[in-house]
């Protein structure tokens, strides 16, 4: 499932006085099986970009290709696209509506027109993969805790067995333990099923540890793109557009600026610790 953006521009309220560009000439290729981090501050166009991937929004100019097909083409089935490109919105627990957890997760597969057996099988499987036990499947989704609700909502999308999973700020409003749990869950899903995952976040620490490639957006454009190390090497550029880099990267860069011979591109605490230990040994 590759997704290609070819000169995509999107304007809200196109043709009126309130016209506002949210995407400007975006060119992107998202390959099969990648784990991508999409970062940028509020209003940079992240959410607009991901809504183009499953056809919720249509480009004002340019084309989006999924698996080589133009998703705005005549006769293209958006419904089938949406089951292949699963999109989990911010605060997905706000979309729960059924009387039981199981029924809510079944909503997606039901809309795909599967058999009852397949629907139930997928729902159970999805709930198991997000760690919701059998004791909770008949509970009302509104009785669950915040973290549980969010996992149920994610299961609701997973049950459609998408080839691409997009998550918009999946850790927003969670405590550190809940955050690690959700991120670990996403990583496990990526490793076990090999699907493409696109993680939208404004927290550098979140993405640095997990993703293969980072796409940075600012002011409706893609400004940086590449593996985490390459992207975070641009400390100052990132900070000038209002994004922070992981703390250890900042410290390494500062040490380097002070004239110490350290690599400035450490992105995890372990890496930085090893680097500093090696430096300490060399100096003594």
């Amino acid at each position: 499932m590759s997704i290609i953006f070819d000169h995509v521009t999107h304007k809200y309220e196109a043709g009126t006085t309130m016209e506002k560009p949210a995407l400007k000439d975006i060119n992107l290729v998202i390959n099969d099986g990648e784990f991508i981090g999409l970062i940028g501050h509020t209003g940079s166009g992240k959410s607009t970009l991901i809504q183009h991937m499953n056809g919720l929004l249509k480009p004002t100019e340019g084309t989006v290709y999924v698996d080589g097909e133009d998703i705005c083409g005549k006769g293209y089935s958006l419904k089938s696209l949406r089951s292949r490109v699963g999109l989990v919105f911010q605060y997905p627990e706000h979309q729960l509506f059924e009387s039981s957890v199981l029924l809510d997760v079944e909503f997606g597969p039901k809309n795909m027109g599967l058999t009852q057996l397949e629907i139930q099988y997928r729902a159970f499987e999805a709930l198991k993969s997000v760690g919701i036990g059998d004791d909770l499947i008949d509970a009302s989704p509104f009785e669950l805790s915040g973290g549980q609700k969010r996992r149920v909502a994610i299961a609701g999308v997973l049950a459609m067995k998408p080839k691409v999973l997009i998550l918009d700020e999946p850790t927003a409003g969670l405590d550190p333990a809940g955050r690690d749990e959700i991120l670990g869950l996403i990583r496990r899903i990526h490793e076990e099923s090999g699907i493409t995952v696109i993680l939208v976040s404004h927290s550098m620490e979140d993405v640095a540890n997990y993703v293969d490639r980072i796409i940075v957006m600012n002011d409706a454009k893609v400004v940086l793109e590449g593996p985490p190390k390459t992207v975070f090497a641009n400390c100052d550029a990132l900070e000038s557009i209002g994004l922070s880099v992981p703390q250890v990267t900042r410290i390494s860069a500062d040490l380097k600026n002070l004239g110490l011979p350290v690599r400035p591109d450490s992105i995890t605490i372990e890496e930085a610790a090893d680097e500093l230990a090696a430096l300490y040994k060399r100096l003594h």
Partner: protein
Amino acid sequence: MIRDITIGQYYPENSIIHRLDPRVKLAGTLVFLVSLFLFKSFWGYIPAVIFLFTCIHLSKVPFKHIVKGLKAVVVLLSFTLLANIFFTKGTDLVFSWKFIKIYREGLEMAGFMAIRLTLLITGSSLMTYTTTPTKLTDGLERAFAPLKLFKAPVHEVATMMSIALRFIPVLLEETDKIMKAQQARGADFEEGGLIKRAKAMIPILIPLFISAFRRAGDLAMAMEVRCYHGGEGRTKMKPLKYKLRDLIAYLILAAYLAVVIFIGKKLH
């Protein structure tokens, strides 16, 4: 799509009409609406149209914007038009085919009603185009203040109104978000018959109600934390005060009303 409904939404501008005291605009709207029922001939429309168009011009709200707002009531308008054309009985037959009979009186009546309805809607929406919800409820509260003597909860009703108005755009945005989230799960709101479509609304309505209740709870909590206790002894940051321009506006209103009454009495 859902945000295309422009009727009644505040249009920010800095015009003399926008700056008028909301009480003047409330009185003005009331006078204008009443004035439309004071005459039975087309002559009465001349001052009404002149008055309304002058106000629109002064308000700097683009005419296009106002026409766009009228789109929402096209159904109501055409229904009135057709009902009047086909069901008014008269003496001067213009057209007849089988059981359909159209009289000259019917056509006149239809035209008369259509203009009246258009003016009614445009007149009252001009007030909401030029007055923020906060000012509007402020004005209402002051205008109905005398009712407090009879223990009417004027302040409470005004507060409820302003909260309700304030939440309209919030809930519209929320609806949009929930619709998209359910569409991402394969929901379809455009296909199928009436019953299927009504059922398709459930996944939107339930989360919407829950979020409305949650917001209401949060708001009530926030108000309580700030010791809100209703109208008694409450002062305002920006109390309403009449200025010279408001007095002039009242005089113009009175003059307009006099002209319309005169025309209604003299010209049939």
